[in-house]
């Protein structure tokens, strides 16, 4: 299978694209710069989304939804914000098509021109702060801790699947606070959530830091970032959290009555991660054979493959093992396909990055064993299986499974630290602790 995937040594950029397309994560779309997220890719994204959503809710945030279309005038209310985003805004100018008089197809109806053009959101600070003006009057309305899951559009010239696409999926948190201190604390809390998610769920060690003035978000006072390192030694900004000061409150006139009955502008934060994380996941862990997906995010965590094909007695054992694993909350799949050879199947599962594969053959069964293979290290081991005691097998699989999880983390953390931070030794050790 690896033949269809370019090797990293030959062409790292092409390796990444091959992997994303051939493992069924995403593909190019009819519009340049857009992508189709395929079911397997979307299943991984759903696990990311669900976990992040839990982490947001555990810290007091709630979800809401704001419109896709933003009046053009909103964008000019915050000077730096518009300067940062103007060059990549998609603009809606008309609301109707009609048949061309010469029969050549549909054309834009010039009579259906909008009085004010609409912007497809590149980010939602403006529309949300315009709404917050109605929601916030008093200190009792604060803090307001809102997140939205949405798509945004930024017209990028150079795009790459997941890493930089014209339309992408993300979450954007927009919070409002009574004091600067509270807003700064929120900015850092969310940065920490992103870092923890990257490290604990994606097995991706990150550096937490502050952006320079030149690199910060348009309209922010401070932008914090988590930066990861890919296998080719290039950095990937993987999430940002912004302290917006009172910039958007001033632009949209959002004030509140304090406990002392004075009137003040509201303090703000915004923070986001996107489907770019999918790109980070692929680039950080995978190899020339295919994806390596950390178990917590893998749509299927254990695949059971009867060899040479699903014979009745093998299927029965496979079902028993699968039931035990499922009872332990593990996502299991049994391969019931009887068309393809085991070698082909194994290569396919390697390409898909399934963390653990259990091979189940007639000879193994006679010996009372199954073969357990780990995707990340490619280690195979024989594990005892008693048909009367499938729990034991399950436990064996489970321990392998947990090892896989920690192994991926250790491996990436080690590789990042070994060669990748040049110049400062004291800082190195603190990152090691954070990652492990």
């Amino acid at each position, binding site marked *: 299978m690896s033949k269809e995937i370019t090797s990293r040594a030959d062409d790292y950029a092409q390796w990444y694209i091959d992997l994303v397309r051939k493992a069924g994560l995403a593909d190019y779309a009819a519009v340049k710069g857009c992508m189709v997220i395929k079911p397997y890719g979307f299943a991984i994204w759903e696990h990311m989304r669900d976990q992040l959503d839990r982490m947001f809710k555990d810290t007091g945030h709630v979800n809401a939804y704001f419109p896709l279309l933003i009046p053009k005038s909103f964008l000019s209310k915050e000077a730096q914000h518009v300067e940062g985003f103007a060059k990549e805004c998609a603009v809606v100018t008309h609301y109707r098509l009609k048949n061309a008089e010469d029969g050549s197809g549909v054309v834009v109806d010039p009579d259906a021109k909008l009085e004010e053009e609409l912007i497809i959101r590149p980010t939602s600070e403006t529309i949300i702060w315009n709404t917050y003006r109605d929601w916030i009057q008093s200190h009792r309305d604060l803090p307001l801790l809102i997140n939205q899951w949405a798509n945004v559009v930024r017209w990028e010239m150079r795009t790459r699947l997941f890493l930089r696409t014209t339309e992408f999926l993300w979450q954007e948190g927009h919070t409002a606070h009574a004091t600067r201190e509270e807003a700064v604390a929120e900015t850092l809390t969310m940065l920490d959530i992103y870092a923890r998610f990257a490290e604990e769920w994606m097995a991706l060690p990150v550096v937490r830091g502050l952006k320079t003035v030149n690199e910060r978000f348009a309209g922010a006072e401070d932008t914090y970032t988590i930066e990861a390192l890919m296998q080719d030694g290039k*950095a990937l900004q993987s999430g940002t959290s912004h302290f917006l000061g009172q910039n958007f409150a001033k632009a949209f006139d959002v004030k509140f009555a304090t406990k002392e009955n004075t009137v003040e502008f509201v303090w703000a934060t915004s923070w986001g991660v996107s489907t770019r994380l999918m790109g980070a996941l692929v680039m950080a862990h995978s190899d020339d054979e295919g994806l390596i997906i950390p178990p917590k995010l893998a749509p299927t965590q254990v695949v059971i493959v009867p060899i040479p094909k699903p014979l009745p007695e093998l299927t029965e054992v496979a079902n028993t093992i699968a039931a035990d694993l499922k009872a332990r909350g593990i996502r299991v799949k049994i391969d019931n396909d009887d068309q393809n050879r085991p070698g082909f199947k194994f290569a396919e599962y390697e390409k898909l990055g399934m963390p653990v594969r259990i091979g189940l053959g007639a000879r193994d069964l006679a010996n009372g064993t199954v073969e357990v293979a780990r995707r990340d290290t490619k280690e195979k081991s024989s594990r005892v299986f008693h048909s009367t005691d499938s729990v034991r097998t399950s436990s064996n699989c489970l321990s392998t499974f947990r090892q896989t999880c920690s192994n991926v983390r250790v491996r990436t953390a080690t590789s990042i630290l070994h060669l990748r931070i040049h*110049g400062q030794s004291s800082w190195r050790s603190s990152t090691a602790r954070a990652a492990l």
Partner: protein
Amino acid sequence: MEILDGKGGFVSAHWDGTTETELAIKDETKATIRCIPIDNPQEVGVCIKSGKPSTQRVLFARAY
């Protein structure tokens, strides 16, 4: 900067704090300042580009 052409990774180095220097380094090496790490230790040094005084190291890298 040979590190960037070789294995890649983050380069922790002194920077004078100006956007001008930051952009000059980017032009020359394609590397950007990824971040000023949180809890970054303060130390006296000189900027790798301008030679001006600097108070801390920042992380440079080529990035996606």
